[in-house]
């Protein structure tokens, strides 16, 4: 039995997450909306808007960055701590690493706050599009114009350059650490097999890919940007090369705007530009509708650790908790 508890977040939902077991929505107006057993709580963390948010790797806090040039860490009690600052810059990219490391970026500037609190500059010469920590080790990928750069941020080891012409945005390592995938300004994904630098092109999208998420055990990479969720197979020796992707939740006239894979099952939650949310099973493409179309694109989706609750948020500031 599916039930939806809607909330009026009141502002663009940038991200949704669970802090302990409580839902948290990071909102464009600079606040965190926390749903606790005692009721709703709003914590103002950024003046000048909130632009990015992600969980710390130990899941004990949510990291946010914003138009005030600050990176903040907020725990389940709503206690916010300043972690780093780039005065007068809009910090719109954020990634959480092992041992409390934090990477953040604005324009051409990319920085890492190391576990000991020191800051390290990892800026490329052109625009940074995305940041991702590798699943093992203090290794950071900086997606940038004309490729990506891999840094071992705790050592002086030389950076590794991965080149591919064009503007690269969001970056993601496969959970086994074998692949790095980026979204591009063109309607495509690019991937590198890290063992030998082999390039992979994943194309055919009618729109830009804005959301990607690995399925349980990293078998598939689910992506937005088409009128179905596109899931590229990453098992087997050659990854997605020469393979057809799964297409789940196909609709005639609406593009997928967000995807979130279930933490354990081969099931993906799909959010569309018109606000609809459904889940689809990989094995037989079976779908269950979770939310009817509203007016505004789904901008955030997040499963809880057990895979029984799903958070959603939209650009217009609608939010909700779906219980399955």
């Amino acid at each position: 039995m599916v039930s939806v508890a809607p909330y009026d977040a009141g502002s663009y939902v940038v991200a949704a997450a669970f802090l302990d077991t409580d839902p948290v929505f990071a909102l464009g107006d600079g606040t965190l909306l926390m749903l606790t057993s005692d009721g709703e709580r709003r914590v103002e963390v950024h003046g000048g808007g909130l632009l990015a948010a992600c969980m710390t790797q130990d899941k004990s806090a949510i990291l946010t960055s914003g138009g005030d040039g600050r990176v903040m860490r907020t725990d389940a009690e709503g206690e916010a701590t300043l972690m780093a600052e780039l005065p007068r810059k809009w910090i719109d990219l954020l990634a959480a690493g092992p041992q409390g490391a934090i990477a953040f970026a604005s324009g051409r500037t990319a920085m890492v706050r190391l576990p000991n609190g020191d800051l390290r500059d990892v800026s490329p010469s052109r625009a940074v599009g995305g940041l991702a920590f590798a699943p093992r080790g203090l290794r950071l990928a900086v997606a940038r114009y004309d490729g990506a750069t891999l840094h071992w941020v705790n050592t002086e080891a030389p950076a590794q350059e991965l080149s591919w012409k064009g503007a690269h945005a969001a970056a993601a390592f496969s959970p086994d650490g074998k692949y790095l995938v980026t979204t591009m300004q063109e309607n495509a994904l690019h991937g590198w097999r890290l063992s030998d630098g082999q390039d992979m092109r994943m194309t055919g999208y009618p729109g830009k890919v804005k959301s990607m998420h690995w399925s349980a055990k990293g078998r598939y990479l689910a992506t937005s940007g088409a009128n179905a969720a596109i899931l590229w197979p990453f098992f087997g020796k050659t990854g997605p090369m020469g393979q057809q992707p799964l297409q789940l939740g196909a609709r005639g006239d609406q593009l997928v705007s967000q995807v979130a894979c279930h933490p354990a099952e081969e099931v993906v939650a799909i959010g569309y530009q018109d606000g609809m949310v459904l889940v689809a099973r990989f094995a037989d493409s079976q779908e269950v509708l979770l939310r009817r179309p509203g007016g505004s694109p789904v901008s955030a989706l997040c499963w809880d650790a057990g895979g029984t609750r799903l958070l959603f948020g939209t650009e217009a500031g609608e939010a909700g908790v779906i219980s399955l």
Partner: protein
Amino acid sequence: MTLTQDTKTPVTVLTGYLGAGKTTLLNRILSENHGVRYAVIVNEFGEIGIDNDLLVESDEEIFEMNNGCICCTVRGDLIRTVENLMKRQGSFDAIVVETTGVADPAPVAQTFFMDDDVRDKARLDAVVAVVDCRHVLQRLADTREAEDQIAFADVILLNKTDLVTAEELKAVEARIQTINPYARLMRSERCDVPLDTVLNRGAFDLNRILTLDPHFLDEHEHTHECGPDCDHDHHHHDHDHDHHGHGHDHGRAHAHEDPHSVKSVSMTAGELDPDVFFQWIGNVSQIQGPGILRLKGIMAFKNDPQRYVVQGVHMILEGDHQRDWKDGEPRQSRLVVIGRDLDFDALTTGFKACEA
């Protein structure tokens, strides 16, 4: 797709050389009590004396797409900033983008047509060029960007008129009109024009096209033959087209006599056959796109109760129905093209041939 939809945030692009007065205008936009909340994207905070959380600095990032064709370059930093601003929907009404003095305005304008996310949320309202009356003639002689900025503009703010004589001002105006006779010219001393004459012009001031005098067409020499040393190749789009290193600066002291300087044409026709027109305009923008700086027009299609507006930058073309033709309004089609090295005679003949 729509040029007129009100749900999109209007964007004003501000161009002009260093020292022309852009910062003065920006300070006014940010400080005056005009009831409109502007998000302002600048290249550097510089002398902007206002601290405002909707004022953002953005490093110009030219993104080349599809093999580096100039027609497909966009401003990556603008895409990102507009996306970030949209997370704060409701806290501003309009966006102003300031470009650097030497910027090519094309990638800025193209960003608002080529990037789907930006197109969804924002529409280019007008390109405003701030011109320093004292120095503009010299700039036009020295550089290609100055000419591009004027050619691209919908509104030209002739600033610092108090620093030139009446004759000099006339010469400046005459020179600007040879490049772009379609822009609205406004004289000012310290950018002291009412802001509503510069901002929120609506759909590129398309109505101006209809009220222009068509005679100027006859006063211009439009034929251009590429000489043997001209390396123009309009069909070849994968070259690296870097304006700053471009080898076309020969003899700029008499820029208005330079065969590569910007010229324009305004064409009129009666009711058009839409099928013929779309095929023709598509060909024009594909083949002559690199030379087209701006293209705009209002079309009357046979058996169509609505006005159809088109606009273009280089090879990008966009069109949509605008509104019903009014009773008594002459159903006339008008197309304006501003550019370099264009075959204006062929354009005029081709446009006429689209008549139904």
